[in-house]
């Protein structure tokens, strides 16, 4: 019995030490496929697929072993976090949303299908009265449309099915949340830890820079840059990431500062560890729980930022995000009011879910709070 375990452990160790080469191989393969894509064959994969495969490889090769190594700690945190019902509810909703975004499009109509026959259909259970000019009698008659099961959430003024639009919007919001937050957190952590650890002049310069960037109100800066560079979704995601790192940097820096003076760091130094090693192996693992909390609580802000941009018309016109749907709804508030309600409700619940989850995680990670 223990022999089998030993074998498995040996294999795992061999795989473990092979992490770097495997990862490099995967990236190279992806790179080759990507180049083939552009220059030789026509569009094998969407660019996002490459990104997801790369991230997936990163997670499987580095993330899962780390999680497995600290599984007892993970279990402890999970037990604490799961006592918070709101946080669990939030997580459930987020998982449901992810599921919806991935599987939903298979069951619903095409969100871009314009169908003027079916325009202005209210949701199931509602009715809409309109004054319509009747060509036959040459007069205005009141025409009533009632909701049907075919379009459970109704249609907009161009006949597009609202439920399909909402589902495609979910995918947009989630991915924007993921990537923009990823960029912002990565940048913020890098700057925060570097400032804290390297100290002195570096710290001064980095913090002055952070102060300056923080002086611009986040949304106005976002609008300004999108105005200059144009509304393209990928660009918007990057810009949100590049403008939203300041809060993270400050928080990570203060946490790292307090860690830096702790004995275990001095002990490491005394043993001759290099700066890089101390940062990677000691500082970062200790701030990871803080990073997770900050990330979870930043996602709603990011999602709302993109939604707000789309709402005021600065979003990517080719992408059906919730903000854009809301904008369409607002313009026809007196007739197709449901088009304004649905995306807002989804945004609200999504933001609420992330806030509950983030709050729950924060309490779970904080040793001083009693759950």
């Amino acid at each position, binding site marked *: 019995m223990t022999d089998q375990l030993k074998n498995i452990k040996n294999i795992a160790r061999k795989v473990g030490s092979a992490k770097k080469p495997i990862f490099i191989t995967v990236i190279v393969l992806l790179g080759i496929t990507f180049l083939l894509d552009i220059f030789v064959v026509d569009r094998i994969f969407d660019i996002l697929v490459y990104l997801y495969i790369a991230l997936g490889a990163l997670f499987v090769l580095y993330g899962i072993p780390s999680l497995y190594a600290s599984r007892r700690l993970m279990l402890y945190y999970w037990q604490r976090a799961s006592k918070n019902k709101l946080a669990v509810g939030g997580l459930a909703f987020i998982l449901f949303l992810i599921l919806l975004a991935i599987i939903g499009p298979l069951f619903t109509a095409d969100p871009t299908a314009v169908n003027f026959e079916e325009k202005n259909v209210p949701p199931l259970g509602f009715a809409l009265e309109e004054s319509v000019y009747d060509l036959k009698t040459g007069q205005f008659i009141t025409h009533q449309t009632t909701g049907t099961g075919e379009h459970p959430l109704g249609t907009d003024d161009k006949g597009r099915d609202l439920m399909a639009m909402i589902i495609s919007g979910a995918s947009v919001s989630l991915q924007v949340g993921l990537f923009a937050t990823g960029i912002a957190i990565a940048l913020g952590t890098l700057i925060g830890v570097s400032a804290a650890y390297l100290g002195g002049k570096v710290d001064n310069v980095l913090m002055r820079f952070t102060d*300056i960037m923080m*002086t*611009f*109100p986040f949304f106005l*800066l976002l609008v300004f840059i999108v105005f200059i*560079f144009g509304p393209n979704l990928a660009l918007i995601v990057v810009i949100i990431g590049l403008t939203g790192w300041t809060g993270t940097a400050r928080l990570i820096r203060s946490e790292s500062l307090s860690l830096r003076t702790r004995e275990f760091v001095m002990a490491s130094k005394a043993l001759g560890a290099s700066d890089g090693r101390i940062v990677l192996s000691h500082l970062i693992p200790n701030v990871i729980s803080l990073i997770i909390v900050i990330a979870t609580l930043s996602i*709603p802000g990011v999602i709302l930022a993109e939604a707000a941009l789309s709402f005021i018309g600065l979003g990517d016109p080719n992408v059906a995000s919730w903000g854009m749907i809301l904008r369409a709804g607002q313009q026809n508030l007196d007739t197709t009011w449901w088009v304004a309600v649905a995306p807002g409700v989804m945004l609200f619940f999504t933001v*609420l879910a992330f806030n509950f989850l983030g709050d729950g995680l924060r309490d779970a990670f904080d040793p001083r709070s009693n759950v």
Partner: protein
Amino acid sequence: MKKTWLRDYIIKRLLLAIFIAWAVLTITFVLVRVGPTSPADKYLANLTVRGQDTAQVVAAIEARYGLDRPIYEQYASYIVNLGRGDWGWSLSTSMPVMELIKTHWIYSFQLIFLSSIFAAIIGILIGIYSAVRQYSKTDYAATFFSFIGISIPNFWLGVMLILLFAVKFGLFKTYYDTGLPLLSLANLKQLILPVITLGTGMLAGYTRYTRSAMLDNLRKEFVRTARAKGLPERTVIGKHVFRNAILPLITIIMFDLGSIVFGGAYLTEIVFGIPGLGQISFNAIFADDYAVVVAVTVISAFLVLMINLATDITYTYLDPRIRYD
């Protein structure tokens, strides 16, 4: 003894603020110049050019606005002009940018000011009550509603309020009437929905922060000492605890003002059609009117800068534990 170091601190802080102001201007300038299209091209796209040599028109525009001069000259005159109060010419509204700002800033101000007062007073009171009566039904309700308040997208809240109260119930107009005198009751009435929209998020935030700051301090030893002195409970809470809680609270409130409120005000103005600085900047974007957009961005950054400066100085003055000698 207190006065000298405070004065030195203020001077130091002012110099820093000037430096940041300069950096803000420079970054804005760089961003505009780094953009893919030049202001001249954008203006050209909006201009009907009939039978004119495009190159000539572009050259004329560039000469008029000094865009053909070397970059550092442009930069220098940019800074100088801003200092002198010449903020450029708004192409879309055909008036100096400064004029535009002078006529419209008051609308933004009244919105932000009223919302802040509304949010601060109610938020802080509820936060204090929540902390003192922790675990009561009111506390749970307040915490629950503050979660909702910070999660509602404020532009959607605005749209929903309009849908309900203006469209369905007809209590308000769906647009903002600039014809009303500012200090009239009618103006106040039409500001109700916008103030609720902008203020709700702020209120929820203030409630949470106040509650947590009060809770932190309610646990401290000096509270027991105050009670042991025989002080009435309202003095213990209202004077001793609150005075300690207000320190981190000021910082958080001011910080919020800088990062979230201006964005929220921008959106609220657009939703309700209030012609404040956010609205005119927004209009300028769709008219490719660079001067206005730059001006509003810079102004908002300067305001945040001043608020941060005021907060820093106030905090340093109020907290006796901070000394810089």
